[in-house]
């Protein structure tokens, strides 16, 4: 894939900012290469189970705060787009069901799969995460507390979260987003392993 110069620069900046933020928490930061996710086993050196659990989530945070995820977990009613996370053009809005306004449904443009001639991403269930699941502008701690809260996560249990992050095909799109969009780091399988490790280790928050 040919990188787009402007986008690559912005993406690098986003990663750098995140790294700084995580460093400030004082927790161990994984040694995974940029664009990859660490294996849960690589956190074995963290003796404190609570800290280790939080470290899993911090690592998972690379995915959650990635533009592939945040763009459709926006703070407002309008999704974002691209690695820069610019407001979605044309202007589209959440609508009553998260699938867009009546005059412009998500599926109008976003078909069942990515369509590269139009450089447009697709999935049969393309839609916005509910407002209660907004991640944009939130700290990883806030996202962690929110993601565990059934009142705000769509009534999901921890097992449901493992399923959602590790198996859901719309989430999985983040790792095959098509031309010009940097994939979420690692693989969906690796993200699933992290969320599993986190859930099974007490789901501590960073």
């Amino acid at each position, binding site marked *: 894939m*040919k990188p*787009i*110069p*402007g986008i690559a*620069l912005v993406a690098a900046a986003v990663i750098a900012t995140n790294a700084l933020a995580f460093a400030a928490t004082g927790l161990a930061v994984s040694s995974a290469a940029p664009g990859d996710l660490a294996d849960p086993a690589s956190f074995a050196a963290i003796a404190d189970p609570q800290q280790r659990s939080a470290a899993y989530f911090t690592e998972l945070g690379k995915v959650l705060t990635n533009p592939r995820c945040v763009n459709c977990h926006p703070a407002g009613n309008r999704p974002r*787009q*691209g690695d820069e996370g*610019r407001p979605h*053009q*044309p*202007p589209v809005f959440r609508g009553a069901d998260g699938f867009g306004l009546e005059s412009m449904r998500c599926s109008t443009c976003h078909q069942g799969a990515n369509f*590269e*001639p139009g450089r447009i991403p697709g999935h049969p269930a393309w839609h916005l995460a509910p407002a209660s699941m907004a991640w944009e502008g939130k700290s990883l701690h806030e996202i962690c507390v929110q993601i565990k809260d059934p009142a705000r996560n769509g009534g999901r249990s921890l097992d449901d979260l493992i399923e959602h992050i590790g198996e859901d095909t719309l989430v999985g799109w983040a790792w095959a987003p098509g*031309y*010009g969009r940097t994939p979420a780091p690692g693989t969906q399988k690796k993200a699933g392993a992290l969320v599993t490790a986190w859930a099974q280790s007490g789901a501590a928050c960073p």
Partner: protein
Amino acid sequence: MRPSRRDFIKLTAASGIALTVAPLMAAEQPPFLARETLPGRGVRRPPLGRVDGVAKVTGAKLYASDFRAADLPGWPADTAHALLVRTPHADRLYEGLDIDRLASIAKPAVVLTSAGIAAAGIHAPPFYAGNLFSPVGQTPAYLGEPVALLVFEHFDDFDRARLALRDGDFLRFGDKTGPLQKPNYGAFRFTRIAGPTPDSPDVYSPLQEGWISPGFTDDSGRPIWRPLPVPEGGQYVTGAQHGEAVRALLAGSDPDLLVLERDFETQSVDPMFLEPEAGLSWFDPASGRLSLVLGVQSPLEAAEAIAFLLSKADVQHRPAAIDTNFAYVGGGFGGRDHTPFPLYVALAAMFFPGKAVRLAHDRFQQFQGGIKRHPFKMTTRIGVDRASGLMAAFAADHELDGGGLANYSPSVAVVGATGALGIYDVPKVDVTTVARHSRGVTAGSMRGYGALQTMTALEVLVDELAAALPMDPIELRRRNALKTGGRTMTGNPYSVSVRTPEILDKLEQHPIWRQRAAEKEAARPGFLVGTGVACATKDFGTGADCALGTVAIDPEGRVSIHADAVEMGNGIGTALANRVAMHVGRVADEVTVAQVDVFDALALVTSGDPYSITQAAQDEAARDPRWVPEISSATSASIGAHVGTQASAEAARVIFRFGLWPAALDLWGIAPSDPRSKQWAEAFWQDEHLLMSGLSPLPLPKIAARAHAMGGVTGAMTHAFSRWAWSQASFAIDGNEWTADIDALALRRGSGPFERLERTAVAFPPTDYNRIGTAFTSLCGTLVRIEIERATGALRIAKAYSVLECGPMLAPEVVLGQAHGGFAMGVGYALLETLPPYEDGPGNGQWNLGRYVVARGSDLPLHDFDVEVLPPISPKEAPKGMAEVVMIPVVPALLNAISDATGHRFQSLPVTADMLKGVLA
């Protein structure tokens, strides 16, 4: 000295290639011209609306991008598709196209590169001086420079190749060399020192002394503006010494003078006309004819440029005749005036003989290769007398980035510089400007044309001056406004009405302005409210504008019009129909635009450059009764209403005077000896009836039938030329001397052929009018009220008001629409649109809408935008162009409103929500 707005390759002289109209063969498809003749006879249409209204709401084939070979009678059945491959790098050696790898995806039938062009003896026209294709082994001159033209016989192969080239690396590059350094496109200095009183002659002005340009550059290629004491700089030295004196005054320590100096930068933007450039071509080796369908703002220029391109080619690549068909245009905004795109359309056909070939940009390609607006860097200094508020001196330095291929940069520099004083009258002025070459995508003509950039810097600075004095911003503008008869920066007055005081009064009285303090007070919690005002005056015309027009009326009273002006949305077809209807009583039901090859009866010839010709040369040339300074010019520079309709209007006037009026007299039974027979100027039309006091109204069909029966004038073809004044000529018609603002005339009597009339006298505007910056201008003032959300920086335009003047409105609804559109484009320019220069910019081929954001309906005060057009100052006032000026004040008004709301003055464009959020944090 003066840069032209167009090149002057005279077709017949330069190439020997005949421009002809192909006799169209009968086929089931209607001929191109029939499709482009609107609204068309017998078409049912609403009583109101544009002449192209029905065609455009029914999806008729109209635009160049609509046509395939199968749509055109006599053309081949199939259409091949061409692809213009452009470089995303201009700082390293280009080493070629990986054609083998591409061929594994889709194999092109033709691969045309620099080598093929050279071998065929093909040369770029001088206006586009540079390579048509980047040669292998060299550093491309600019981002987006073409490297190859590929032609595919089948659409699917073309489409696969297009996608592969868009998304993959098929171009090979070698060592980094850094970008090429090339000379500036032009540098100019405009200095004016007024005399001691408004009535006394100027001490120094470009009009008196001629235009000057520094002859020297430093090691980095920048012009040296100091008056160098060397003999070659003689003319420059005088002007520059006056200029330096203006600067010394501004740098001095006079406590009575408030001097502000500010830097301002504007960005590169794309015209973003909605129809990407497209064309269709076919070279028929059997007949030697090259046929094209194109959509441009400058039809004759495109035809001439193609003729030049091929004029010295080898026999295989040199057509015997070129048949150009110019279509309706899906938006222009200047970006289709003198674009090199048609050259590549022609090349596609010449290198795939016998086949029809389509070349069409997709949007990525249009961003990569289309003409852009010049970004400016400006420093502006104004000194104001603290007591009177009068501006004593003005100095500015402009630098604009013209990108990599020669285009209109020198001309944009001049218009920007001479527009830098906006609506004001300042006695001491010194402006320098330099248009730089860079590796950026080529910049050229775009709505506002330099004046948008410099007047934005000006009107923001004037607002700041008002606050610093302090003085009410409208009062400061009023005190310094140039009045009728006052001299512009080049030393000449405007020759049209100047209505700045009225415009300022309207702005001052408007509720948006009057309620600004109360509205600011009443801002909602979390929001800031601000109000901004700005006023602009913008030239229309270029100093060498012309029009061709034919009007004919048939025995049933039906009117048809042919004109060379281009319909790109500007409503020229409707304006033509309405202006002609004033004379012949009926709105035409057949209007064709963008025609340059249906005026053969005038047998016009031309020579020289209308901008630089000497008076002696013009006088000599004018002895040929067929000579005109220029035959056809681009539809640009807001010139449609004033010049674009002139030839047709004058043709209609001749038809009325020598065809319809004599017929009406005959029907009324008024003898030639009756004094009423001379009162043709007193008659007028209503509902297709001719009215004359004391006589029975006559229906047009009856008059037309009688005119035909009498062998009267039923058709007229004219040419008009303006160099800030009309060419005027006299003709002997039916024993009368007819003098009009035209310089060529052919008449049709009854149903006969058009026959040229020899002019009995002619006066062309003097050549020293070329020292005028502009003599034509129109005004627009804008008010905006904005609301900014503190937390997000989101800006909402709550209300807006624009007031303008343009003489009589030929198509009032079109004028309103232009004002709306200018507002929207101004909002985009001020708040949304930007293209980074160079490698991250559009030249990399990865830009499209979405990343590039233009104004949508939700960005605009759709229900709270008032537009007021001042009525003409006199029934004799001629139509004035207004399509550009309506955009200009919108931009500084928004910046001034932002300053009012936030207390922060932004000195660059665009001002985005993120930037607002930044200063509010």
